[in-house]
């Protein structure tokens, strides 16, 4: 059973990381959701004992139980994972409205172009001018 859990966590985590490395932002978010689930599963499996219920026995002579704490922890982790996924999807909506693309390559290309435009507008930093000396003002196209 432990082996099954370990293998499942490994596969889910691996698939999640693979998706995280894609350029499509929706895949990135899906990948993150998978990583979140791998973490939840790790949390869950850290307290499981085979064939025992996760309920603390009230009477002294009851059978031993699985640890119930991890169930509560996993529930919390699921809620947090859900909230972050929702937030990331909202971010994607904002990005899509602004740029009409959810592809990282497109977005970074546009950003690089914008940066290049800014660079061109900024006049070259002149050491002389920094010292406050008069220099011939170059004609800057407006």
């Amino acid at each position, binding site marked *: 059973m432990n082996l099954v859990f370990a293998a499942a966590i490994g596969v889910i985590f691996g698939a999640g990381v693979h998706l*995280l490395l894609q350029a499509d*932002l929706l895949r*990135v978010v899906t990948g*993150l959701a998978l*990583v*979140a689930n*791998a*973490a939840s599963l*790790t*949390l869950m*499996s*850290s*307290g499981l004992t085979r064939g025992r219920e996760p309920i603390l026995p009230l009477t002294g002579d009851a059978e031993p139980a699985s640890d119930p*704490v*991890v169930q509560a*922890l996993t529930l*919390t*982790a699921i809620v*947090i*994972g859900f*909230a*972050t996924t929702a*937030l*990331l999807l*909202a*971010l*994607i909506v*904002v*990005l899509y409205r*602004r*740029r009409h693309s959810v592809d990282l390559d497109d*977005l*970074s290309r*546009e*950003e690089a172009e*914008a940066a290049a435009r800014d660079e061109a507008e900024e006049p070259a*930093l002149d050491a002389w*001018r*920094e010292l*406050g000396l008069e220099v011939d003002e170059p004609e800057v196209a407006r």
Partner: protein
Amino acid sequence: MILVAGPLLVLWVAGLALAALDGRRRSVGVLAIAAVAVAFGLQAVLLGRVLADGPQELVAGGWAADVGIRLRVDALGAVFAALSSGIVVAALLQAVATGVRSRSLPALVVFLTLGLSGLFATGDVFSFYVFFELAMIAAYALTAASGTAREVGAAFLFAIVNLVGSFLFLIGIALLYRATGTLEMVAVAEAAGRLEATTAILIAISFFVAFGTKLGLFPFHFWLPTLYATASPPVAAIFAGALANIGAYGLLRFGGAILPNELALSATALIVIGSVSIAYGAIQAIGRRDTREVLAYSSIGHVGYILVALGLGEPVGLAAAVAFSVANALNKALLFLSSELRGRLTAAIFLVGVLSVAGVPPTAGFFGKAALFDAGVRAESWWTVALLFVGGALSFVYVFQIYQHDRWRPREQRERATPLGSAGVGQRLAAGLVALVVLVLGLWPQPLLAAGRDAAEAIVVARGDG
């Protein structure tokens, strides 16, 4: 006990109320400032109490200690809690004085402070994760709350990278729980001392990656520069001055108190990564012209010092790490808050920050670096001392470079670079208060050094087995 739970209750109620209100209205912003200021006041009193009487504990709802939610504030947590809330008060003051453009900003900042206050106050590993995520989610929303596509893109990268770090941290917690069978920090620390080395190292690495990402250490730093450069100055100040404290606190708490053997084992690795971080941050910062980009890379460089101090280990190194973290958080908050303001007074305020980052007395930064030197000399780690000297010289170069570039250029060129123009009273007051704290700690460093020493002692005590 009201001092322990009080800040959390105030912030929680205020956050919920503010979430329903329109944050662009000044009255709402003032309410948020008041809430965070009350929390800060309580935490400052709590800090005094903790330093005088030792750790304060509270188990919520009167439950048995291992069932209920346990809050436990020791000197380390109290120092960081008061520091972070104080910086948030100043940043929020400036944000409201500048004019809040997004509806949700005050509520998000209050929730972020709630998360920070909670994680510095909790005595339970899993509650730590929950508060940590609360602060981080508020931060993700804060970066995305306004702005252009570039800002949203930076926010997205920030969120993705840090979430991966968070989930690794969660996996680390699962492993730690499996290995020790408890979530209560003191008991975990006791049990962790008996772990097999392979298990403990695996757990330690996952924690290191998580907090390294949060701090923006060198190999995990790539989300940081664009974010700090695109966020508005108060938000950048909150990130660099308050949110980054999670990383420093986490490394001290989980490395110093819970897994001290593994920390000692990895001392060389920590010093190497820290040194690379210092060199990378400083060299990148020298090559930049944009003030806030310089500050962002400078942040990457300066967290390297914290790691080096941790690598030196033992009370002196830990105390230096705390003292330096406090000074560094104040410096970065001060520089970000005053970076866009113009006028004679704000130039003086900015200069205080510049001197403090460069480590020139009489500023807090001087004593932060002096504590590191002291730790390096006592550990007889001459390589570290040399590194501190070179790193200090480099930071001297880049902070004065930005001062010269920002303040000494002819007026018409400065106007281009500063859309905000002359600063208002509230904006200057916020930066001025932080500058005052930096100066006071520079003239009277006793509280800073004592806090570092007491926090280091608290870490050693929290190890349990001594």
